[in-house]
């Protein structure tokens, strides 16, 4: 997979082995992981596994979350992009899901929106998808707000299999 997307302030590109330390910074942060349903990571090797897992998705599905680099600092500040769901969420699989995760110091700058818009544009216009899905923990106000602002339509709630948390389920259809 060789997707590279550039927006005004960001570069999105596949995750690489060298991203492990920045990715660990992200996934070991308790603020970031508050609504994810798993505990913050404690070992760098876990982030190595995460990168391998995403690279496997790139190979098998031709798509997966991309590293997001802030142009100004040239730092990896999180990830964003589409994922092909091969395991059921809310009873649905074999569909494309939008997701993102950013380091707290980069919150509130519109980066989730900026990277998500680029991801949706890629999904609808390059991949020609009819529908893109998303979901967020019901108490994660910031993420729910972003998804609605992007134009996602809330389609009810479901209970997360892992931690039993209530989540909102969202859909967006391609506007022709």
């Amino acid at each position: 997979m060789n997707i590279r997307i550039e927006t005004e302030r960001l570069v999105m590109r596949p995750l690489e082995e060298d991203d492990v330390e920045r990715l660990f910074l992200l996934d070991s942060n308790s603020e970031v992981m508050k609504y994810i349903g798993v505990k913050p990571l404690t070992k760098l090797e876990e982030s190595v596994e995460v990168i391998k897992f995403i690279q496997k998705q790139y190979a098998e599905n031709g798509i997966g979350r991309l590293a997001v680099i802030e142009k100004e600092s040239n730092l990896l500040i999180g990830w964003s992009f589409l994922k092909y769901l091969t395991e059921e969420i809310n009873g649905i699989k074999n569909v494309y899901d939008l997701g993102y995760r950013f380091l707290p110091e980069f919150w509130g700058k519109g980066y989730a929106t900026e990277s998500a818009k680029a991801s949706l544009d890629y999904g609808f216009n390059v991949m020609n998808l009819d529908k893109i899905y998303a979901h967020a923990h019901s108490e994660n106000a910031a993420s729910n707000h972003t998804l609605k602002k992007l134009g996602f339509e809330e389609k009810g709630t479901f209970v997360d299999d892992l931690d039993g948390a209530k989540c909102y389920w969202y859909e967006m259809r391609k506007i022709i």
Partner: protein
Amino acid sequence: MNFTENYILENEVVKLIPLKNEHFENLKEFSNNEPDIWKYNAFGANGEANLKKYIETALQNREKQTDYPFVVFSKKDQKIIGSTRFYLINNTNKTLELGFTWYGKKYQGTNINKNCKYLLLEFAFEKLNFERVGFRANYKNQRSINAMKSIGCTEEGILRNFAFDAEGNRIDAIVLSILKNEWFDSVKNNLLKKI
């Protein structure tokens, strides 16, 4: 497991606090109003008299160093809403059973159970360094069996005529378990599912 220590296990959703006699006051509303919580089990806490015995037995077993009972405090509701227990604790074999779990009806099928189980398993495998956590249920209690399977338990078999239910009928018990390596694998897989 150190039976004289007061272990408190907590996350964002629940707090597990070692059971004490005083908790009778917190638990009695369930014994009085929702006695069929215990319909699948003998020695339940249906009614205040049984609740008293239930707490006594649990605390005696902690003294005998076989059980370690907790009450479940829901952070959202700011109240005690159930109870759960480690039992048949064997420090030599590094095995224990997890059970005697019940929640008020309103809290069944919510995220309370998952969060409790997660904290208890994490404690057993990652703090105590135990090797096996076993579970038993009335073979007819499908709700309970499904809950155990959903947290990654493997069914081991059926113990025939093993116990009796609240009405005194003999029942078969199903045995399930999760092993230390399975716990670490499932934690890892859960992590990867969230990316």
